[in-house]
Protein backbone atom coordinates (compact mmCIF):
# COMPACT_ATOMS: atom_id res chain seq x y z
CA UNK A 1 0.00 0.00 0.00
CA UNK A 2 1.48 3.31 -1.07
CA UNK A 3 0.83 5.98 1.51
CA UNK A 4 0.85 9.70 0.90
CA UNK A 5 2.13 10.65 4.32
CA UNK A 6 2.48 7.52 6.42
CA UNK A 7 0.56 9.23 9.22
CA UNK A 8 -1.31 7.10 11.70
CA UNK A 9 -4.59 8.68 10.61
CA UNK A 10 -3.90 7.80 7.00
CA UNK A 11 -3.04 4.21 7.94
CA UNK A 12 -6.22 3.83 10.00
CA UNK A 13 -8.35 5.06 7.10
CA UNK A 14 -6.50 3.23 4.34
CA UNK A 15 -6.85 -0.03 6.27
CA UNK A 16 -10.60 0.44 6.41
CA UNK A 17 -10.90 1.17 10.12
CA UNK A 18 -13.49 3.63 11.38
CA UNK A 19 -11.35 6.63 12.37
CA UNK A 20 -11.75 8.51 15.62
CA UNK A 21 -10.03 11.88 15.99
CA UNK A 22 -9.99 14.46 18.78
CA UNK A 23 -9.21 18.08 19.33
CA UNK A 24 -6.91 20.08 21.57
CA UNK A 25 -6.88 23.85 21.89
CA UNK A 26 -3.44 25.36 22.68
CA UNK A 27 -3.18 27.51 25.82
CA UNK A 28 -3.62 31.28 25.99
CA UNK A 29 -0.12 31.59 27.34
CA UNK A 30 2.96 29.51 27.87
CA UNK A 31 1.59 26.82 30.16
CA UNK A 32 2.95 23.62 28.61
CA UNK A 33 1.52 21.58 31.48
CA UNK A 34 -1.98 22.48 30.31
CA UNK A 35 -1.26 20.96 26.89
CA UNK A 36 0.23 17.86 28.53
CA UNK A 37 -2.78 17.47 30.80
CA UNK A 38 -5.23 17.65 27.90
CA UNK A 39 -3.03 15.33 25.83
CA UNK A 40 -3.11 12.66 28.55
CA UNK A 41 -6.90 12.33 28.20
CA UNK A 42 -6.61 11.88 24.44
CA UNK A 43 -3.64 9.52 24.27
CA UNK A 44 -4.65 6.04 23.14
CA UNK A 45 -8.27 7.11 22.65
CA UNK A 46 -7.95 8.90 19.31
CA UNK A 47 -6.02 8.29 16.07
CA UNK A 48 -4.99 11.90 15.68
CA UNK A 49 -5.70 15.14 17.45
CA UNK A 50 -6.51 18.47 15.79
CA UNK A 51 -4.39 21.29 17.16
CA UNK A 52 -6.39 24.44 16.58
CA UNK A 53 -4.89 27.61 15.10
CA UNK A 54 -5.92 30.77 17.00
CA UNK A 55 -9.50 29.49 17.01
CA UNK A 56 -12.26 32.11 17.13
CA UNK A 57 -9.50 34.60 16.26
CA UNK A 58 -8.13 34.63 19.80
CA UNK A 59 -4.35 34.56 20.28
CA UNK A 60 -3.05 31.24 21.56
CA UNK A 61 0.19 29.30 21.43
CA UNK A 62 0.95 28.63 17.75
CA UNK A 63 -0.56 25.44 16.43
CA UNK A 64 2.77 24.08 15.13
CA UNK A 65 4.39 24.55 18.54
CA UNK A 66 1.51 22.85 20.34
CA UNK A 67 1.65 20.10 17.67
CA UNK A 68 5.27 19.41 18.60
CA UNK A 69 4.30 19.15 22.28
CA UNK A 70 1.55 16.73 21.27
CA UNK A 71 4.11 14.58 19.45
CA UNK A 72 6.34 14.61 22.53
CA UNK A 73 3.34 13.43 24.56
CA UNK A 74 2.79 10.47 22.22
CA UNK A 75 -0.10 11.92 20.21
CA UNK A 76 -0.32 12.37 16.47
CA UNK A 77 -1.25 15.96 15.66
CA UNK A 78 -3.50 17.17 12.89
CA UNK A 79 -1.98 20.59 12.40
CA UNK A 80 -4.66 23.20 11.70
CA UNK A 81 -3.77 26.22 9.61
CA UNK A 82 -6.02 29.20 8.91
CA UNK A 83 -5.65 31.75 6.10
CA UNK A 84 -6.51 34.73 8.28
CA UNK A 85 -3.14 35.32 9.95
CA UNK A 86 -0.38 34.73 7.40
CA UNK A 87 0.47 35.10 3.75
CA UNK A 88 1.65 32.37 1.36
CA UNK A 89 5.31 32.76 2.34
CA UNK A 90 4.68 32.35 6.05
CA UNK A 91 2.27 29.48 5.45
CA UNK A 92 4.72 27.51 3.34
CA UNK A 93 7.60 28.06 5.75
CA UNK A 94 5.41 26.97 8.68
CA UNK A 95 4.42 23.84 6.76
CA UNK A 96 8.11 23.02 6.19
CA UNK A 97 8.94 23.65 9.83
CA UNK A 98 6.03 21.58 11.13
CA UNK A 99 6.94 18.72 8.79
CA UNK A 100 10.57 18.83 9.95
CA UNK A 101 9.31 18.27 13.49
CA UNK A 102 7.22 15.25 12.52
CA UNK A 103 3.82 16.71 11.62
CA UNK A 104 2.16 14.52 8.97
CA UNK A 105 -1.49 15.65 8.95
CA UNK A 106 -2.73 19.11 8.15
CA UNK A 107 -6.15 20.74 8.11
CA UNK A 108 -6.63 23.70 5.76
CA UNK A 109 -9.15 26.32 6.94
CA UNK A 110 -10.24 29.86 6.06
CA UNK A 111 -10.43 30.90 9.72
CA UNK A 112 -13.00 32.85 11.70
CA UNK A 113 -13.06 36.56 10.99
CA UNK A 114 -10.84 38.63 13.31
CA UNK A 115 -13.89 40.60 14.41
CA UNK A 116 -14.85 37.70 16.72
CA UNK A 117 -11.58 37.60 18.56
CA UNK A 118 -9.40 39.52 20.96
CA UNK A 119 -7.79 41.64 18.21
CA UNK A 120 -10.71 42.90 16.12
CA UNK A 121 -8.42 45.64 14.74
CA UNK A 122 -6.17 43.08 13.04
CA UNK A 123 -5.78 43.05 9.28
CA UNK A 124 -7.26 39.87 7.87
CA UNK A 125 -4.58 38.50 5.55
CA UNK A 126 -6.49 35.99 3.38
CA UNK A 127 -3.73 36.15 0.76
CA UNK A 128 -5.03 32.73 -0.26
CA UNK A 129 -8.22 30.95 0.79
CA UNK A 130 -8.68 27.44 2.20
CA UNK A 131 -9.21 25.96 -1.27
CA UNK A 132 -5.95 27.50 -2.48
CA UNK A 133 -4.15 26.36 0.69
CA UNK A 134 -5.15 22.80 -0.17
CA UNK A 135 -3.82 23.26 -3.72
CA UNK A 136 -0.59 24.80 -2.45
CA UNK A 137 0.09 22.01 0.06
CA UNK A 138 -0.69 19.36 -2.55
CA UNK A 139 1.71 21.04 -4.98
CA UNK A 140 4.43 21.02 -2.32
CA UNK A 141 3.79 17.32 -1.70
CA UNK A 142 3.07 15.92 -5.17
CA UNK A 143 5.18 18.16 -7.40
CA UNK A 144 7.86 19.08 -4.89
CA UNK A 145 7.35 22.73 -5.72
CA UNK A 146 6.41 25.85 -3.86
CA UNK A 147 3.39 27.84 -4.98
CA UNK A 148 5.75 30.27 -6.73
CA UNK A 149 7.17 27.39 -8.78
CA UNK A 150 10.61 26.94 -7.21
CA UNK A 151 11.78 23.45 -6.30
CA UNK A 152 11.39 22.29 -2.72
CA UNK A 153 14.36 20.31 -1.37
CA UNK A 154 13.43 16.89 -0.06
CA UNK A 155 9.96 15.39 -0.04
CA UNK A 156 7.08 16.65 2.05
CA UNK A 157 4.65 13.84 2.80
CA UNK A 158 1.53 15.33 4.25
CA UNK A 159 -2.00 13.94 4.70
CA UNK A 160 -4.12 16.89 3.62
CA UNK A 161 -7.47 17.67 5.16
CA UNK A 162 -10.10 20.38 5.15
CA UNK A 163 -13.38 21.19 6.83
CA UNK A 164 -16.88 20.99 5.36
CA UNK A 165 -20.11 22.51 6.53
CA UNK A 166 -23.00 20.29 5.40
CA UNK A 167 -25.66 22.68 6.65
CA UNK A 168 -25.14 26.35 5.80
CA UNK A 169 -27.35 27.90 3.13
CA UNK A 170 -27.41 27.61 0.18
CA UNK A 171 -27.74 23.92 1.07
CA UNK A 172 -27.69 22.74 -2.56
CA UNK A 173 -24.24 24.29 -2.97
CA UNK A 174 -22.77 22.42 0.02
CA UNK A 175 -21.99 19.20 -1.82
CA UNK A 176 -20.44 21.12 -4.72
CA UNK A 177 -18.19 22.96 -2.31
CA UNK A 178 -17.12 19.59 -0.95
CA UNK A 179 -16.46 18.56 -4.55
CA UNK A 180 -14.28 21.64 -5.06
CA UNK A 181 -12.20 20.82 -2.00
CA UNK A 182 -11.74 17.29 -3.28
CA UNK A 183 -10.67 18.49 -6.72
CA UNK A 184 -8.32 20.95 -5.02
CA UNK A 185 -6.68 17.85 -3.53
CA UNK A 186 -7.86 16.94 -0.02
CA UNK A 187 -7.38 13.42 1.31
CA UNK A 188 -9.83 13.77 4.19
CA UNK A 189 -12.61 16.02 5.42
CA UNK A 190 -13.76 16.79 8.95
CA UNK A 191 -17.24 18.25 9.08
CA UNK A 192 -18.77 20.99 11.18
CA UNK A 193 -20.49 19.73 14.37
CA UNK A 194 -23.52 17.72 13.30
CA UNK A 195 -26.81 18.05 15.16
CA UNK A 196 -29.29 17.96 12.29
CA UNK A 197 -28.94 14.29 11.36
CA UNK A 198 -31.60 14.44 8.66
CA UNK A 199 -29.76 17.14 6.74
CA UNK A 200 -26.45 15.35 7.23
CA UNK A 201 -27.89 12.10 5.83
CA UNK A 202 -29.12 14.03 2.80
CA UNK A 203 -25.73 15.67 2.30
CA UNK A 204 -23.73 12.46 2.60
CA UNK A 205 -26.12 10.71 0.27
CA UNK A 206 -25.56 13.45 -2.33
CA UNK A 207 -21.82 13.06 -1.80
CA UNK A 208 -22.16 9.29 -2.30
CA UNK A 209 -24.15 9.82 -5.51
CA UNK A 210 -21.49 12.15 -6.87
CA UNK A 211 -18.76 9.64 -6.05
CA UNK A 212 -17.09 12.10 -3.67
CA UNK A 213 -16.92 9.73 -0.69
CA UNK A 214 -14.72 7.42 -2.76
CA UNK A 215 -12.24 10.20 -3.43
CA UNK A 216 -11.77 11.48 0.13
CA UNK A 217 -12.46 10.18 3.63
CA UNK A 218 -15.30 12.00 5.39
CA UNK A 219 -15.11 12.24 9.17
CA UNK A 220 -18.36 13.33 10.79
CA UNK A 221 -18.02 16.12 13.38
CA UNK A 222 -19.48 15.47 16.82
CA UNK A 223 -19.59 17.84 19.79
CA UNK A 224 -21.54 16.65 22.83
CA UNK A 225 -23.81 19.29 24.35
CA UNK A 226 -22.92 20.10 27.94
CA UNK A 227 -26.03 22.09 28.76
CA UNK A 228 -29.27 23.50 27.39
CA UNK A 229 -27.61 26.93 27.40
CA UNK A 230 -24.82 25.67 25.15
CA UNK A 231 -27.35 24.22 22.69
CA UNK A 232 -29.33 27.46 22.59
CA UNK A 233 -26.16 29.51 22.21
CA UNK A 234 -24.95 27.37 19.33
CA UNK A 235 -28.30 27.58 17.61
CA UNK A 236 -28.59 31.36 17.96
CA UNK A 237 -25.03 32.66 17.91
CA UNK A 238 -22.69 30.34 16.05
CA UNK A 239 -22.84 30.98 12.29
CA UNK A 240 -23.28 27.90 10.16
CA UNK A 241 -24.53 25.76 13.04
CA UNK A 242 -27.80 23.86 12.62
CA UNK A 243 -29.30 22.81 15.98
CA UNK A 244 -32.83 21.37 15.68
CA UNK A 245 -35.44 22.27 18.33
CA UNK A 246 -36.06 18.57 19.01
CA UNK A 247 -32.52 18.21 20.30
CA UNK A 248 -32.95 21.19 22.64
CA UNK A 249 -36.23 19.67 23.88
CA UNK A 250 -34.55 16.35 24.55
CA UNK A 251 -31.85 18.07 26.64
CA UNK A 252 -34.52 20.08 28.48
CA UNK A 253 -36.34 16.85 29.26
CA UNK A 254 -33.31 15.36 31.02
CA UNK A 255 -33.43 15.02 34.81
CA UNK A 256 -31.87 17.81 36.85
CA UNK A 257 -28.10 17.42 36.85
CA UNK A 258 -28.25 14.90 34.00
CA UNK A 259 -28.20 17.23 30.97
CA UNK A 260 -24.51 16.66 30.24
CA UNK A 261 -25.09 12.91 30.56
CA UNK A 262 -27.91 13.20 28.02
CA UNK A 263 -25.58 15.19 25.75
CA UNK A 264 -23.01 12.40 25.84
CA UNK A 265 -25.74 9.81 25.23
CA UNK A 266 -26.88 11.71 22.13
CA UNK A 267 -23.27 11.94 20.89
CA UNK A 268 -22.79 8.19 21.36
CA UNK A 269 -26.03 7.45 19.47
CA UNK A 270 -24.78 9.66 16.64
CA UNK A 271 -21.43 7.86 16.54
CA UNK A 272 -23.23 4.48 16.41
CA UNK A 273 -25.22 5.69 13.41
CA UNK A 274 -22.14 7.13 11.66
CA UNK A 275 -20.42 3.74 11.91
CA UNK A 276 -23.17 2.29 9.74
CA UNK A 277 -23.70 5.26 7.43
CA UNK A 278 -22.39 4.79 3.90
CA UNK A 279 -19.78 7.38 3.02
CA UNK A 280 -18.74 8.17 6.59
CA UNK A 281 -15.20 6.97 7.31
CA UNK A 282 -14.92 8.10 10.90
CA UNK A 283 -15.82 10.61 13.56
CA UNK A 284 -14.08 13.80 14.61
CA UNK A 285 -14.90 14.43 18.27
CA UNK A 286 -14.65 18.07 19.27
CA UNK A 287 -15.08 17.92 23.04
CA UNK A 288 -14.46 21.62 23.57
CA UNK A 289 -12.82 22.20 26.98
CA UNK A 290 -14.12 18.76 27.87
CA UNK A 291 -11.03 16.73 26.99
CA UNK A 292 -11.31 14.76 30.25
CA UNK A 293 -14.59 13.26 28.99
CA UNK A 294 -12.98 11.83 25.83
CA UNK A 295 -11.94 8.47 27.41
CA UNK A 296 -15.52 7.92 28.64
CA UNK A 297 -17.09 8.92 25.31
CA UNK A 298 -14.69 6.71 23.35
CA UNK A 299 -15.47 3.80 25.66
CA UNK A 300 -19.23 4.26 25.51
CA UNK A 301 -19.21 4.84 21.74
CA UNK A 302 -17.37 1.51 21.42
CA UNK A 303 -14.50 2.86 19.35
CA UNK A 304 -11.81 1.38 21.61
CA UNK A 305 -9.23 0.01 21.39
CA UNK A 306 -7.79 2.14 18.61
CA UNK A 307 -5.86 0.25 15.93
CA UNK A 308 -2.07 0.31 16.32
CA UNK A 309 0.38 0.24 13.40
Amino acid sequence: MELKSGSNLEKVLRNGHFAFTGELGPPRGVDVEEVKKKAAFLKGNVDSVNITDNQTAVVRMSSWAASIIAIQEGLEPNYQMVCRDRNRLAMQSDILGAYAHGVRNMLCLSGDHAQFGDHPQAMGVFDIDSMQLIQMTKKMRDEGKFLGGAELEGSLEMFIGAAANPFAEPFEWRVHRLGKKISAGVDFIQTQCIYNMERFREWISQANDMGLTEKAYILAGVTPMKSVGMAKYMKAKVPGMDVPDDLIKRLQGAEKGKVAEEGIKIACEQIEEFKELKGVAGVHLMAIEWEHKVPEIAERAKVLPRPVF
Partner: protein
Amino acid sequence: MIVAKRKPFDDVKNMIKDYKRVLTVGCGTCVAVCLAGGEKEVDVLNAELDMARKLDDNPVELSACTVERQCDREYMESLDEIVEKNEALLSMACGAGIQFLAERYPHIPVFPAVDTTFIGVNQDVGWYEERCRACGECVLDMTGGICPVSMCAKGLHNGPCGGTNNGSCEINAEQPCAWYLIHERLSKQGRLNSIMDVVPARDWRNQTPGTVIQPGYTKKSE
Protein backbone atom coordinates in the same frame (compact mmCIF):
# COMPACT_ATOMS: atom_id res chain seq x y z
CA MET B 1 -17.09 57.21 -7.41
CA ILE B 2 -14.45 57.57 -4.69
CA VAL B 3 -16.22 58.03 -1.36
CA ALA B 4 -14.72 60.03 1.50
CA LYS B 5 -15.93 61.35 4.83
CA ARG B 6 -14.79 64.38 6.73
CA LYS B 7 -12.28 63.83 9.51
CA PRO B 8 -13.38 64.67 13.07
CA PHE B 9 -13.39 68.46 13.43
CA ASP B 10 -10.93 68.55 16.34
CA ASP B 11 -8.38 66.55 14.33
CA VAL B 12 -8.56 69.01 11.45
CA LYS B 13 -8.40 71.99 13.77
CA ASN B 14 -5.36 70.53 15.51
CA MET B 15 -3.48 69.94 12.23
CA ILE B 16 -3.56 73.63 11.29
CA LYS B 17 -3.37 75.22 14.76
CA ASP B 18 0.09 76.73 14.16
CA TYR B 19 -0.79 78.41 10.85
CA LYS B 20 -2.33 81.86 10.45
CA ARG B 21 -3.17 81.80 6.74
CA VAL B 22 -4.74 78.62 5.42
CA LEU B 23 -6.30 77.76 2.07
CA THR B 24 -8.95 75.04 2.04
CA VAL B 25 -9.04 73.29 -1.34
CA GLY B 26 -12.14 71.37 -2.35
CA CYS B 27 -12.61 68.99 -5.26
CA GLY B 28 -15.60 69.21 -7.54
CA THR B 29 -15.82 65.58 -8.62
CA CYS B 30 -16.25 62.41 -6.50
CA VAL B 31 -15.98 63.98 -3.03
CA ALA B 32 -18.42 66.72 -4.04
CA VAL B 33 -20.97 64.14 -5.19
CA CYS B 34 -20.65 62.18 -1.94
CA LEU B 35 -21.04 65.38 0.10
CA ALA B 36 -17.62 65.24 1.73
CA GLY B 37 -15.32 67.74 0.04
CA GLY B 38 -17.06 69.92 -2.55
CA GLU B 39 -17.55 73.68 -2.55
CA LYS B 40 -20.35 73.53 0.04
CA GLU B 41 -18.37 71.36 2.46
CA VAL B 42 -15.33 73.66 2.10
CA ASP B 43 -17.45 76.65 3.14
CA VAL B 44 -18.94 74.79 6.10
CA LEU B 45 -15.52 73.63 7.34
CA ASN B 46 -14.03 77.11 7.00
CA ALA B 47 -16.93 78.67 8.91
CA GLU B 48 -16.49 76.15 11.73
CA LEU B 49 -12.72 76.62 11.84
CA ASP B 50 -13.06 80.38 11.78
CA MET B 51 -15.39 80.38 14.74
CA ALA B 52 -13.38 77.84 16.75
CA ARG B 53 -10.12 79.72 16.25
CA LYS B 54 -11.74 82.98 17.34
CA LEU B 55 -13.00 81.27 20.49
CA ASP B 56 -9.48 79.97 21.10
CA ASP B 57 -8.13 83.50 20.73
CA ASN B 58 -6.03 82.25 17.85
CA PRO B 59 -7.66 83.74 14.76
CA VAL B 60 -6.86 82.38 11.29
CA GLU B 61 -7.24 83.87 7.85
CA LEU B 62 -9.05 81.23 5.80
CA SER B 63 -9.62 81.21 2.06
CA ALA B 64 -11.44 78.70 -0.09
CA CYS B 65 -11.08 77.33 -3.57
CA THR B 66 -12.68 74.30 -5.18
CA VAL B 67 -11.19 72.93 -8.39
CA GLU B 68 -12.95 70.64 -10.83
CA ARG B 69 -10.53 67.75 -10.15
CA GLN B 70 -7.60 67.75 -7.74
CA CYS B 71 -6.24 64.66 -9.48
CA ASP B 72 -5.79 66.45 -12.81
CA ARG B 73 -2.91 68.86 -13.51
CA GLU B 74 -5.02 70.84 -15.98
CA TYR B 75 -7.29 72.09 -13.17
CA MET B 76 -4.54 72.68 -10.61
CA GLU B 77 -2.95 75.62 -12.43
CA SER B 78 -5.71 77.94 -11.31
CA LEU B 79 -4.49 77.45 -7.71
CA ASP B 80 -0.90 78.61 -8.23
CA GLU B 81 -1.42 82.26 -7.37
CA ILE B 82 -3.63 81.86 -4.31
CA VAL B 83 -1.56 79.02 -2.85
CA GLU B 84 1.52 81.24 -2.56
CA LYS B 85 -0.35 83.65 -0.30
CA ASN B 86 -0.90 80.90 2.31
CA GLU B 87 1.18 79.12 4.97
CA ALA B 88 -0.67 75.81 4.75
CA LEU B 89 -3.22 73.97 2.62
CA LEU B 90 -6.13 71.90 3.77
CA SER B 91 -7.31 69.49 1.10
CA MET B 92 -10.81 68.00 1.02
CA ALA B 93 -10.07 65.78 -1.99
CA CYS B 94 -9.54 62.02 -1.95
CA GLY B 95 -6.10 60.62 -1.05
CA ALA B 96 -4.98 60.93 -4.68
CA GLY B 97 -6.01 64.58 -4.88
CA ILE B 98 -4.34 65.45 -1.57
CA GLN B 99 -1.07 63.92 -2.75
CA PHE B 100 -1.25 65.61 -6.14
CA LEU B 101 -1.72 68.94 -4.39
CA ALA B 102 1.24 68.26 -2.06
CA GLU B 103 3.34 67.20 -5.05
CA ARG B 104 2.64 70.46 -6.89
CA TYR B 105 3.50 72.66 -3.88
CA PRO B 106 6.23 70.72 -2.06
CA HIS B 107 7.34 73.77 -0.06
CA ILE B 108 3.95 74.22 1.63
CA PRO B 109 2.47 71.82 4.22
CA VAL B 110 -0.70 70.06 2.94
CA PHE B 111 -3.14 68.46 5.40
CA PRO B 112 -6.03 66.06 4.76
CA ALA B 113 -9.48 67.16 5.96
CA VAL B 114 -11.20 63.93 4.83
CA ASP B 115 -10.64 60.19 5.15
CA THR B 116 -10.87 58.41 1.80
CA THR B 117 -12.87 55.25 2.33
CA PHE B 118 -13.75 53.31 -0.82
CA ILE B 119 -14.98 53.17 -4.40
CA GLY B 120 -18.70 52.95 -4.03
CA VAL B 121 -22.20 53.61 -5.25
CA ASN B 122 -24.89 56.11 -4.32
CA GLN B 123 -27.75 54.21 -2.66
CA ASP B 124 -29.65 57.36 -1.74
CA VAL B 125 -28.81 60.96 -0.84
CA GLY B 126 -25.98 60.76 1.69
CA TRP B 127 -25.88 56.94 1.66
CA TYR B 128 -22.96 55.23 -0.06
CA GLU B 129 -21.84 51.62 -0.16
CA GLU B 130 -18.55 50.07 -1.14
CA ARG B 131 -18.45 48.04 -4.34
CA CYS B 132 -14.84 47.97 -5.53
CA ARG B 133 -11.35 47.84 -4.01
CA ALA B 134 -9.47 48.49 -7.26
CA CYS B 135 -7.67 45.14 -6.95
CA GLY B 136 -6.53 45.26 -10.56
CA GLU B 137 -7.77 41.81 -11.56
CA CYS B 138 -11.54 41.90 -12.02
CA VAL B 139 -13.40 38.61 -11.51
CA LEU B 140 -16.94 39.95 -11.91
CA ASP B 141 -17.42 37.81 -15.05
CA MET B 142 -17.10 34.68 -12.92
CA THR B 143 -19.09 35.91 -9.93
CA GLY B 144 -22.23 37.20 -11.58
CA GLY B 145 -21.32 40.87 -11.14
CA ILE B 146 -20.84 40.65 -7.35
CA CYS B 147 -17.32 41.39 -6.08
CA PRO B 148 -15.81 38.83 -3.68
CA VAL B 149 -12.81 41.06 -2.97
CA SER B 150 -14.78 43.97 -1.53
CA MET B 151 -18.07 42.28 -0.57
CA CYS B 152 -16.75 39.12 1.17
CA ALA B 153 -15.26 39.95 4.59
CA LYS B 154 -12.47 37.44 3.89
CA GLY B 155 -12.07 38.26 0.20
CA LEU B 156 -12.55 34.58 -0.62
CA HIS B 157 -12.41 33.46 -4.23
CA ASN B 158 -13.88 30.02 -3.54
CA GLY B 159 -16.68 30.83 -1.11
CA PRO B 160 -18.91 30.76 0.75
CA CYS B 161 -17.02 29.85 3.92
CA GLY B 162 -18.55 27.85 6.77
CA GLY B 163 -19.59 31.07 8.49
CA THR B 164 -22.27 32.03 5.96
CA ASN B 165 -25.41 32.51 7.99
CA ASN B 166 -28.73 32.21 6.12
CA GLY B 167 -27.68 34.80 3.58
CA SER B 168 -25.73 36.97 6.03
CA CYS B 169 -22.01 37.20 6.66
CA GLU B 170 -20.62 35.78 9.91
CA ILE B 171 -19.38 39.24 10.93
CA ASN B 172 -22.81 40.83 11.05
CA ALA B 173 -26.41 39.85 10.34
CA GLU B 174 -26.86 43.14 8.44
CA GLN B 175 -24.00 42.34 6.06
CA PRO B 176 -25.09 40.09 3.18
CA CYS B 177 -22.87 37.08 2.41
CA ALA B 178 -21.30 37.90 -0.96
CA TRP B 179 -21.02 34.24 -1.91
CA TYR B 180 -24.64 33.55 -0.98
CA LEU B 181 -25.63 36.35 -3.39
CA ILE B 182 -23.19 35.13 -6.05
CA HIS B 183 -24.68 31.63 -5.86
CA GLU B 184 -28.22 32.98 -5.95
CA ARG B 185 -27.60 35.16 -9.00
CA LEU B 186 -25.64 32.60 -10.99
CA SER B 187 -28.22 29.95 -10.15
CA LYS B 188 -31.01 32.16 -11.54
CA GLN B 189 -28.96 32.80 -14.67
CA GLY B 190 -28.20 29.09 -15.06
CA ARG B 191 -24.48 29.86 -14.81
CA LEU B 192 -23.38 27.96 -11.68
CA ASN B 193 -20.76 26.29 -13.86
CA SER B 194 -18.67 29.42 -13.68
CA ILE B 195 -17.92 28.81 -9.98
CA MET B 196 -17.54 25.01 -10.12
CA ASP B 197 -13.80 25.11 -10.76
CA VAL B 198 -11.30 26.02 -8.06
CA VAL B 199 -9.94 29.55 -8.53
CA PRO B 200 -6.16 29.34 -7.98
CA ALA B 201 -4.19 31.71 -5.75
CA ARG B 202 -4.28 35.15 -7.29
CA ASP B 203 -1.79 37.86 -8.03
CA TRP B 204 -1.94 40.58 -5.38
CA ARG B 205 0.83 42.67 -6.88
CA ASN B 206 -1.58 45.60 -6.86
CA GLN B 207 -0.02 46.45 -3.49
CA THR B 208 2.83 48.12 -5.36
CA PRO B 209 2.05 51.55 -6.90
CA GLY B 210 0.28 51.10 -10.20
CA THR B 211 0.57 52.93 -13.50
CA VAL B 212 -1.85 52.62 -16.40
CA ILE B 213 -1.02 53.83 -19.89
CA GLN B 214 -3.97 53.38 -22.21
CA PRO B 215 -3.41 51.96 -25.69
CA GLY B 216 -2.23 54.63 -28.13
CA TYR B 217 -0.63 56.77 -25.41
CA THR B 218 2.88 56.95 -24.02
CA LYS B 219 4.42 57.92 -20.73
CA LYS B 220 5.50 61.48 -21.58
CA SER B 221 8.33 61.75 -19.10
CA GLU B 222 10.21 58.93 -20.84
